């Protein structure tokens, strides 16, 4: 490994030196950019993608630094005498059915909701990518079995399976993450497998095999990095989808009935007051929609940035 690194470093040095030595016209006008530099450059060129990224960073910052933006505590500040106050006045977005500040709950709740989405996507990716890599690389019976299993998972209305898993495990935020991760990996498996099939017969993989590298090493050091683009796009879109599904599960009452704020649970809290106090339902939904919109915009931007056809 270290030899490889050294070689690579030496080659890079060599390349730099030739550029300096030659000093030709062509070398200066064509700066050497790596694959990832290209991706970043393409992404930053995409206005909507950048807007999405900024929106998402602002949302994450506001949730993480919630105490900076509100003086109320989302759990312990309960004003029994001040329930269901409409937005405006001392409480920016009003108070909920037991007198807690909605703005504070929205900020603190964002931590749980966004983190849930990210964790679901990461776990789903870990399961799906491994299955896809193994199925695509080894082929044959392994492939047939794994893909049959993946197809079966895909053929099932996943929300019903998620609810059934929730029922089996009991309701808690952790179990929402588990049940959604267990139901959202098939997309990753399919995508990764098709990528692996496309690159498995390329020369550098042949070379690695000739060099007698172990299978796991080829898989994780040589195949996986070349599937990264597809995986990252799918990861981004899964985060958005998971936030939506988690809200759905929480709305069905699958989230634990604790005081800890979460956007889906806030919607569930507002359920009985839909007619009289619609803002209790409107506000968390808007927060979810804006967050998912920002994430999807990032995903679209990444899709374009990774697509070689879009690059010049």
């Amino acid at each position, binding site marked *: 490994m270290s030899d490889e690194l050294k070689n690579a470093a030496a080659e890079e040095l060599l390349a730099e030196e030739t550029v300096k030595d030659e000093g030709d016209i062509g070398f200066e006008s064509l700066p050497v950019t790596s694959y990832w530099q290209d991706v970043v450059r393409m992404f930053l060129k995409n206005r909507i993608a950048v807007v999405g990224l900024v929106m998402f960073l602002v949302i994450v910052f506001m949730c993480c630094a919630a105490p900076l933006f509100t003086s109320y505590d989302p759990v312990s500040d309960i004003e029994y005498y001040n329930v269901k106050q409409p937005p405006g006045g001392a409480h920016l977005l009003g108070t909920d059915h037991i007198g807690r500040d909605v703005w504070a709950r929205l900020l603190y709740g964002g931590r749980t909701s966004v983190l849930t989405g990210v964790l679901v996507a990461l776990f789903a990716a870990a399961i799906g990518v491994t299955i896809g890599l193994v199925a695509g690389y080894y082929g044959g019976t392994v492939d047939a079995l794994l893909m049959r299993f993946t197809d*079966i998972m*895909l*053929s099932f*209305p996943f*929300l*019903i399976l998620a*609810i059934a898993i929730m029922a089996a495990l009991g309701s808690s935020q952790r179990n929402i993450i588990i049940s959604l991760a267990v139901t959202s990996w098939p997309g990753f498996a399919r995508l990764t497998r098709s990528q692996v099939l496309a690159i498995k017969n390329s020369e550098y993989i042949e070379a690695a095999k000739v060099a007698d590298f172990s299978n796991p090493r080829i898989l994780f050091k040589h195949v996986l990095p070349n599937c990264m683009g597809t995986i990252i796009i799918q990861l981004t879109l899964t985060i*958005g989808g998971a936030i939506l599904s988690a809200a759905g599960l929480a709305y*069905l009452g699958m989230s634990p009935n604790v005081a800890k704020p979460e956007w889906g649970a806030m919607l569930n809290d507002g359920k009985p007051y839909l007619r009289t106090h619609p803002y209790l339902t409107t506000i968390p939904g808007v927060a979810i929609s804006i967050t998912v919109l920002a994430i999807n915009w990032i995903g*679209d931007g990444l899709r374009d940035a990774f697509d070689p056809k879009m690059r010049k």
Partner: protein
Amino acid sequence: MWAYIVKRLLQAIPTLLMISFLIFSLLYITPGDPIDLILSTENMKITPETRAAIEHEWGLDRPFLERYFSFIFNAMRGDLGTSYQTGQDVFEEVMARMPATLKLTVVSMILALMISLPLGMLAALKHNSIWDSLATVLATVGVAMPRFWFGLMLIILFSFKLGWLPSMAYATIRDDGFFKFLRAIILPASSLALGNAATQTRMIRSSMLEVLGQDYVRYARSKGLKEKFVIWGHAFKNAMIPVITIVGGEFGGLLGGAVVTEQIFSWPGVGRLAVNSISKRDYPMIQGITLLLCTVFLMINILVDISYALIDPRIRFVSRKQ
């Protein structure tokens, strides 16, 4: 063609077996005893002997695999057992609810296509116009909103504020007439349709744009064919092939999405039954629902593949050769 259909039907069997095994094992590890749950809701007490008798009758005292196989053998004869809660035949009860769910998904699919087809086509034909921007906005905002929340917003606007439509109503065409049926189903179906309309619009737009850039479209144009024929005779059919796959795959999502939507609009479908049964640990009911929903979904997929073959002669040719 028939050989192909039979082959697909046979392929569905291992899928159903595996799904039922998955659900069966899930229920097996689920904590919470169904007998206790019924007793606590009915506020009853029973002797250990009675409990043992009930357990024996429901088969809860038998080992896991034995229970699973007896379930499968009974299911093959069309017997899905009786509900713990109501004591009714599971197959009959689920099938009584199935039409409501299917109506909801089909109507919402039609609604989604009614929005996405014209909008997607317009966006592609008038590339970079106001229609194109409108399609993009719908496509991005539509997938970012939680479907059930959009349904709640529809209720607030059309039922509470404007008072135009009922927020909870169920009607059938046969009993109440078409107009009443439409009034009852329009809100739940729209709320369910939103996400699909969004993804379809996007899909139709990009598929149509791709096809319009193909050589055969250019050739048709250079032949001097009228634009109408170029678009509907040559481009449209080819653009629809990838769209049909997406639409078929969306039925699974719709069946799942119907669970939450039915809850919001008190729609008497399978989804509501599923949520109720899961919370009550009504094992036979949950197994029956998942098995029947999956069967419906697999049937739809087979239908989609057949319609695929009808549209694309290349696929038909291959399947005939096989």
